[in-house]
């Protein structure tokens, strides 16, 4: 929709051209959220699309995803064969409520910075030990894990004027075996629970719970736990199951615990 209070758009081509942050500014990634709701407090957009960031960089260390990489670009990645976790990319892209047309514009960084419980790029990058690089307005930068970056619905670690530059997924995570479970109240709807299990080459296990909780919950184990222990850890870690129109808390809890059980079984561990 038209954002009628916007009076100015800047289109920096390099970090040095980023205008000093001021009240009423917003970074414009894909625009698929910014332009989907009234933004009466905004007066200026800082367009990130001209910064020319390489969307995806594959290296021996892992995958660097520019914050401005679109969902469509990420989905189209041809990963190295040894990245056994790569199917998670497509699974998480398909967990978007939005259609493939939105993928053409929506960005990975934008989805993470929205910090909604059901943000599937949060699920993906949190499960794969993603680390975000944040640029501060003073020219410095810092790194935060995605699991720590998201604080709650529409709340994250970004400070005023700070910008997400990229997300890095390490090879150790990308070469793990994964199991993915997701449910929503309607077909292809917004996730009510999205749970990812990851069994690393060294036998370590991680369970990442998103959508059913206000923020990502990541539980790590040296080896595959028993179902009892896994369930107990989930219950201990989640104080409040998320409650909104997309699922009652009791159902989200139930489905999360159920998916945890299925994931354990799939990854070859616990007795049923």
């Amino acid at each position, binding site marked *: 929709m038209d954002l009628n209070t*916007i009076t100015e758009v800047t289109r920096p081509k390099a970090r040095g051209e980023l205008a000093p942050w001021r009240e009423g500014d917003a970074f414009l990634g894909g*625009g698929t959220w910014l332009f989907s709701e009234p933004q009466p407090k905004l007066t200026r957009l800082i367009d990130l699309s001209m910064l020319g960031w390489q969307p995806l960089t594959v290296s021996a260390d892992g995958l660097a995803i520019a914050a401005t990489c679109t969902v469509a670009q990420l989905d189209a990645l041809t990963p190295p064969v040894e990245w056994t976790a790569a199917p998670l990319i497509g699974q998480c892209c398909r967990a978007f409520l939005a259609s493939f047309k939105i993928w053409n514009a929506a960005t990975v960084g934008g989805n993470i910075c929205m910090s909604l419980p059901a943000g599937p790029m949060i699920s993906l990058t949190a499960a794969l030990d993603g680390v975000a690089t944040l640029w501060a307005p003073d020219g410095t930068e810092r790194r935060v894990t995605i699991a720590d970056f998201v604080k709650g619905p529409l709340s994250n670690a970004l400070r005023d004027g700070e910008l997400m530059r990229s997300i890095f997924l390490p090879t150790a995570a990308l070469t793990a075996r994964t199991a993915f479970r997701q449910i929503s109240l309607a077909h*292809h709807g917004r996730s009510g629970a999205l749970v990812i299990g990851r069994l690393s080459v060294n036998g370590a296990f991680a369970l990442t719970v998103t959508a059913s909780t206000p923020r990502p919950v990541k539980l790590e184990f040296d080896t595959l736990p028993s179902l009892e222990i896994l369930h107990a850890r989930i219950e201990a870690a989640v104080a409040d199951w998320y409650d909104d129109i997309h699922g009652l808390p009791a159902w989200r809890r139930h489905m999360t615990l159920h998916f945890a059980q299925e994931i354990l079984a799939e990854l070859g561990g616990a007795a049923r």
Partner: protein
Amino acid sequence: MTFNINGKAFAERPAAGQCLRTFLRALGHFGVKKGCDAGDCGACTVYLDGEPVHSCLVPAFRAEGREVTTIEGLASGNELHPMQQAFLDAQGFQCGFCTAGMIMTAASLNQAQRADLPRALKGNLCRCTGYRAIEDAITGKRDTEDGHAGCGVGHNVPAPAGPDVVTGKARFTLDVAVEGLRHIKLLRSPHAHARIRSIDKSEALQVPGVIAVLTHEDSPKTMFSTARHQDRATDADDTMVLDTVMRYIGQRVAAVIADTEAAAEEGCRRLKVGYDILPAVFDPEQAMQPGAPLLHGDKGPDSRIYNAKRNLIHAVHSEFGNVEAGFAQADAIHEGTYFVPRVQHAHLETLCAIAWLDAGGRLNVRSSTQVPFLTRQELAHVFDLAEDKVRVFCERVGGGFGAKQEMIVEDIAALAALKTGKPVKIEFTREEQFIAATTRHPMRVHVKIGAARDGTLTAMQVHVVSNTGAYGNHGGPVLEHACSESISVYRCPNKKVDGFAVYTNTVPAGAFRGYGLPQTSFAVESAIDEVARALGIDALDFRRRNVVKRGEPMIGAHVSPDDVIYGSYGLDQCLDLVDAAMRSDSAGVILPPEWLIGQGTALTMIDTVPPGGHYSDTYIWLEADGTYAMTIGTAEFGNGTTTVHRQIAATVLGATPPHIKLTQSDTDHGGHDTGAYGSTGTVIAGRATQKAAEALRDGLLDFAARHSGAARADCALSDGAVVCDGKSIPLADLRQAADVAGVVLSAHGTTNGTPRSVAFNVQGFRVAVNRVSGEIKILKSVQAADAGTVINPMQCRAQVEGGVAQALGAALFEEMVIDANGRVTNPTFRNYRIPAFADIPRTEVLFAETSDTLGPFGAKSMSESPYNPVAAALGNAIRDATGVRCYRLPFKPDRVHAALTAAAG
């Protein structure tokens, strides 16, 4: 830098924060529609360098230097794009508002996406079709046929507007460029109940571009109802154009008129309003109690409010026989409280209008309305104008479903035009549709039904509490309707009905497809199912034993009026058709053990015409070129009546349907039309067209006989000519001869809507319910419809499919949530899900073979009623599968899971 749109360069510049959608429309590309303006519905889909995007989410400046393709540029030259042709062939649309975006998306799909339409089309919402016709289009099926001369009725004649719809040329309400158009934005109340103490508009008036601010001081003092009925006294006069009391969050406080929407919005933000907060009540049961805050306690008897001191807009009490005695005779009784929540029509074209004063000072309103004639009457009443000083009309309307049987934007548009003398536009946002338009009436229905061991009903009792919201529009008649056919379809000696329609400080409810029957039918048909189960009788057999038969009295809250007759009766056939269909493939599918399978059915009856008279006029004449032209009053909003009227006239006149030109829904055409509501577009307006065509035919033959000297009996019409004693006279020649002779070859037909008949629908579902997740898979859906003579089987089937789909949305997930302060918390499509392609199963549609004594060519109404039995049939299937009864809609997996968990103890 320039913008390249459909191969043409434009030098215009967008505003800094403008989205591509409005920029494209400002440059005249009206095929780019606004359904949600938030990226959820896909109606604004265009290509950016060949890639499909939602143009409402694209910052316009990013299109600079790129190739933009809209629906207007999809075809090359005069050739339709194959996907446009496919949508024509399958008639993959009803109202057509989503169609441009749907075609743009469908045309962009690769092979893999075409193989997975549920996923590929998740970003395109259609509220009308239920997606079957869209699937037919994309998979290359042809459903239309070319009606040949004289054989209009009974054929799948395509919609006249089809070519314009698929090319984006069809003009919906705002698809016109108006010189000097000003824009209206409304400041809305942040309080559920408050009195305006003061409004300071000085800052707003200083905003550049703002030309006026209208407040209650500018408002006419005449009270009215936004609901429109043939008799305006049907609804209570409880509303003003701009009031001093706010009764729900979202009510209009003031209107700002400006040169741009941006300035009008800024003006709204600059208004300073002082409020005295009043106590509010949101629950209808509480609102009925003594001492509850009163919404309309200031109104007197002339408002026609049933009891303003108890927040009652209306109440119904009746008893036939003695229900206590009836329950004493029962061997099985089911008693339960059922709840249907607030749902929204979600027509894709939001409420909108353009109003202006013409050179003669006459008020013109171009509106998205189902009721142009009634809106003209009420505008004249409210603004104290002579009716001939007001014109209201619509061209193509982007969906209605009852929501546009209201005057919700026309009054403020008229006030703004009258006050400023400028042409003005108002267009609701999608959010405004949720917080400040109308909804279905939420109802709590307590039902108790008893039957004897032999399967005979002994007593039926319902207690209905309907929440009409802050204003009473439709509150009374919806309650009456809710308490009628859902009960009167059963023969039972003892019936008791108590109904209450109650004001609360929430967004007003209004007319919505089914008009109260979906709510009570959910309760009654669930209860019927339970009683049959308790007696060990098949639910369809139980219904067969107890439904009214032809000629039997129909008794609900009242004995059905004398003018409701059995013009035909197809309920027995509908029950048999669904029974047979459900038995035909009961082997079913193999599913994992956590899926529980069951099936359920429900029936509904509906009067074919609303009570109180329903009028329509058709004028038809022979044109100089030998074709026919006519004007009809009823509006087209996807119901397909334009097609049907052409078919009716073509059949009577022996003509080919495309040889009949037709314009519609304009008060300037003269006569009267009560409106396109109550499923009357075919049975009432169509009958007027039949009468007009018959009168014209008679006039043509009379004149042809005189002109040719042949005996009248030897004259007959054929396509484009009249054949007199074997000699063919082209109609153009006949017209010329008539002109010379001073004979006018035109005719008029009119109907008054009485007597009325009854129509029936029976729905069957087979479902699988996942006992772990609560998910529901619909394995089979079948609906039998008693539509009388089916004038256009393709379109009538599509009406049934669309009704089932809309009802499935309400049964499966639609629900407006209102918080403890009275605020709607989910006013967007991403939080108020309406069915997408993936959500809707294909429904097998079966027609009873009946012919009605009243409707044109024996036709009956079939627009609203397919909605009505759906929720109950689904609930009964879930009950059959799981053993658990779900008492409230929607049956979302989280709720079904909760019910299963509770039942498991």
